[in-house]
C-alpha cells in the first residue's frame, strides 16, 4: 500500500470484460512527505475519490481483490481516502 494524489481522470470506452463499471483515475504515488515517487499510474477508483484528493492505493494482485467482480486484470486500486497523515 502507498499514498498517492489523484491528478486526473482517464476516459476509456473500449475495455476488457470485467472492467465495465470501473472508474479510472490518474494517480501520482507519494512518499510520507507527500513528495512524488516515480511516474503517475492509472488506478481503479474504489473509494469515490476525485482529482486533488490524497488517497491510499493497493498494488499488484491485491488491487484486483478490491474490485467487484474481483477476478479482473487490475494492478492498482484506490482503496481509501486519506484524512490525515501523522508522521
Amino acid at each position, binding site marked *: *500500500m*502507498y499514498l498517492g494524489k489523484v491528478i486526473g481522470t482517464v476516459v476509456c470506452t473500449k475495455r476488457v470484460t470485467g472492467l465495465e463499471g470501473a472508474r479510472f483515475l490518474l494517480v501520482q504515488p507519494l512518499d510520507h512527505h507527500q513528495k512524488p515517487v516515480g511516474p503517475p499510474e492509472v488506478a481503479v477508483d474504489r473509494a469515490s475519490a476525485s482529482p486533488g484528493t490524497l488517497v*491510499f492505493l493497493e498494488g*499488484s494482485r491485491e488491487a484486483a*481483490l478490491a474490485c467487484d467482480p474481483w477476478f479482473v486484470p487490475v494492478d492498482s486500486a484506490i482503496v481509501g481516502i*486519506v484524512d490525515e*497523515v501523522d508522521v
Partner: protein
Amino acid sequence: MNLCRVLGTVVATEKHPAFHARKILVVQPLDEKLSPIGTSFLAVDNTSSAGKGDVVLVLHEGNGARQVLGDKQAPIRNVVMGVVDRIDVGSR
C-alpha cells in the same frame, strides 16, 4: 518480510471495508544497520502495539496477509507481523 521503522499513522474515514477497525501505519524500509533504504509505504498493523519509532517486521505477500487477517478477500498485502526487540548482525 523485511525490517521497517514506523514513521506514523494514516487516518482514513472513507475506505474499503477490509480496512475497517485496522490501524494503517506509514513505514520506512531499513537495512541491517537500521538505515533507511528505498521509499516509505503503508502497512496494516496486526500486532496492535506498534507505535511511532518502532522497528517492525513487515510481510509483503497477499496470501499470508489474508491468512493472518482472517479475511480471504482483503485487498491487503503489507502487514506488520511483529515488533522487533533487537537484531544481531554478526561479522565472520
